[in-house]
């Protein structure tokens, strides 16, 4: 039965090549757009280099204090994170780091822009950067405020030249200070703004004093639980601790601070009333709808046209006793076949365009790839497309009157 449908479908596709081309074009290009978008979002949200322990972690990016007429939001100070966040017991490790800032260095009359980040030693233990050379700096070195650094592979190439040998133990000058290189890590794309930097420095060598007692400061925090099961417990303990934090000033009456999962922290907008998640989902859904609705309408249109062309075939089948249900079933299957052929072309086109995007290096170190999630999404989209564009024409067709259908020719 299915084999027959398949044969008919192929025969029909071959008959009207122009219509087939339009259908395939619509399906494959829509899928390509959706898949490239999906690959991009997947890279932003799901890429787990370097934080492979994401499921066990909570992220704290800043705090916000509100009063009747005033509002103050910032990242955290060293005082705040040791005094308050450090007081909770569930986390086994706590990493903190500044956001990456920029500076320049000049060698051989050439300018190199460098972004730098101050981190603690547990940063290296929670985040699993791939070390191409050497190793991270230790707690001992941080406590002694030694001028050591971990640099990214990109900076190594820019500073020492593309085919420089091992550089561990050499010195790199940034901000007019010489740092001894203790390790080289694989570069992170700048879209992973939590982890991106060119040089990573011990927070104790920071030029700004980190010892004042303000709440606001340069740091954000990652807490690591012993296991995945401990994360809710850690979050609960954090929230309880957060409730007890006194305001830093009389003008405020609310203090908002959140320990988020990675995804929540990525979309947090700073608006306490509405979560960023809602915004992100609304934006994504409306984009998806916009991109799919036109090609789908188009397909429905074309499919109706094609079916009506086959009214004599339908009339004959009906006259010989085929039920409407069988006909609808047949047509949907035909349509699915078409959609899947379009889907395969779409995947090929996606692979090509992703390759082009990667080769163009629009964002350094951002390598998009088709992974299984994206492929799975594509598959679902294919089925969705096939059904959406097949059901209505099939229903219209099944209601054709036998006599008119036969008489039409």
């Amino acid at each position, binding site marked *: 039965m299915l084999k027959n449908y398949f044969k008919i479908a192929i025969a029909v596709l071959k008959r009207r090549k122009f219509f087939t081309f*339009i259908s395939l074009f619509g399906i494959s290009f829509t899928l390509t757009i959706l898949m490239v978008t999906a690959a991009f979002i997947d890279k932003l949200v799901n890429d787990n280099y370097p934080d492979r322990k994401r499921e066990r972690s909570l992220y704290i990016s800043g705090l916000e204090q509100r009063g009747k007429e005033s509002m103050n939001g910032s990242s955290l100070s060293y005082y705040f994170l040791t005094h308050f966040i450090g007081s909770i017991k569930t986390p086994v490790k706590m990493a903190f780091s500044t956001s990456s800032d*920029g500076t320049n260095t000049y060698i051989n009359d050439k300018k190199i822009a460098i972004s730098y980040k101050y981190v603690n030693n547990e940063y290296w233990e929670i985040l699993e950067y791939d070390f191409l050379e050497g190793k991270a700096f230790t707690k001992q070195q941080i406590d002694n405020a030694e001028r050591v650094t971990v640099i990214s592979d990109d900076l190594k190439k820019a500073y020492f030249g593309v085919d420089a040998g091992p550089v561990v133990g050499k010195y790199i000058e940034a901000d007019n200070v010489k740092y001894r290189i203790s390790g080289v890590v694989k570069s992170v794309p700048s879209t992973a703004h939590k982890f991106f930097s060119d040089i990573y420095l011990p927070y104790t060598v920071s030029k700004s004093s980190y010892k004042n007692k303000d709440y606001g400061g340069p740091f954000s925090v990652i807490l690591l639980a012993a296991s995945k099961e401990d994360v809710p417990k850690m979050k609960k303990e954090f929230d309880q601790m957060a409730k007890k934090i006194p305001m830093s000033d009389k003008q405020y009456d609310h203090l908002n601070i959140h320990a988020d999962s990675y995804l929540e922290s990525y979309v947090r907008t700073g608006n306490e009333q509405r979560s960023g998640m809602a915004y992100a989902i609304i934006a994504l859904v409306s984009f998806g709808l916009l991109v799919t609705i036109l090609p789908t309408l188009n397909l*429905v249109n074309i499919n109706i046209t094609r079916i009506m062309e086959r009214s004599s075939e339908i009339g004959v089948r009906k006259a010989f006793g085929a039920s409407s249900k069988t006909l609808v079933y047949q047509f949907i299957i035909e349509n699915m076949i078409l959609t899947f052929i379009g889907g395969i072309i779409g995947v090929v086109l996606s692979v090509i365009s992703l390759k082009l995007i990667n080769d163009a290096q629009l964002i350094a170190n951002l390598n998009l790839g088709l992974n299984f999630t994206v492929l799975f999404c594509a598959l679902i989209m294919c089925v969705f497309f096939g059904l959406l564009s097949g059901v209505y024409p099939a229903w219209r067709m099944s209601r054709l009157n036998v006599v008119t259908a036969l008489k039409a020719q």
Partner: protein
Amino acid sequence: MVKHLFKLIWNKKKQNFLLLTEILISFIVIFAVFSFGVFSYKNYMKPMGIDYEDVWVINYNNPANSTNADSVTLFYETLKRNVKALPNVIEAGYCSNNFPFSGNMMSSGLSYQGKAISNVNQFNADLDYIKILNAKMLEGRWYTKDDYLPGERKMVINKSLKEVSFGKGQAIGKYLHNYGGKEKIKVIGVIDDIKFNGDFLPTAKGMYYLLDTAAYKWTGNMMVKVKPGSDAAFEGKLYKTMINSLKNSNIEIKHLTDKIVNVNKITLVPLIIASIIAAFLIINVALGLFGVLWYNISKRRGEIGLRRAVGASGNSVSGQLVAESLILATFSLLIGSFFAVQFPLLNVFDLPAMVYIIALLLAMLFIYLLVLICALYPGRQAANIYPAVALHEE
């Protein structure tokens, strides 16, 4: 004639409904992309207001920690003098961190005769600001050394703010009140608008306060105008000069020409992506439209044959088919325009009404052209139908 065509369309309303929806949605997509495009283009055509080539911005943090105001002032004056003494430097001056193309914003409110003016960008800059950027004063004057002396508070406002608060009237010498209305501030000059957010975004209301000596403590930027062709070697020298004075700072030198590329990207990248997606959707729709019209015509061979047989010319037949498609498009456009007009009426997104109107007209023109092109070929096909052959089929 039109009435008759309308009847023909109405008779096939079920079949035409999908086509209508498709054109309607394409129209809305095109309208959105065009609005964005027209808005960006209009902004792009306005003058920048400054010369940003060869202007560098030095960013430093942790300024000198001294409680003595006099020594802080002395320190920064000396630093500025040292920078100005470098061979390639033409001008140098301190400014707040919302320098052009920085992407930073600092806004505040004002009031004039009890009327509140909100969202005014506040800039702090010193005496050399307009010389560095080559900004134009329209009326009055920029700050001079005398303005450092204690006295009434003064401000320079930009053209947009002047138009909002004083309209066409004279601004110089009048007073604006700060947020809350407690303090009177005298307007001493009107400066031309500067496109702070790059080529493609509009100017906004702005006011400039003199960056006085008390502000040195929390200021972290110095703008430097250098001679054309200054290279990295000189930049390294400038860097050393800065870091030798500000030993506890992280210092970064950026070029305004690089910064503007970055802020322009914020507008251009979404515009390019939107255009690519819209183009793809439109190709899709055009092909579909073409296919459906073609099919419709081949189905109406009998009708066309009959018309030809009773003496209609080929041109009038193809004209009828094209006119039918255009009427169909008109329906979609009417419905679409109803929605589109809501944007200027309800003032969504805060764009000028003119932008929407131009975009609306362009989008209508575009859809008509699209439908015309898609209908022309099938129309020609119809004109070539021989009555004898067509009628013979029945």
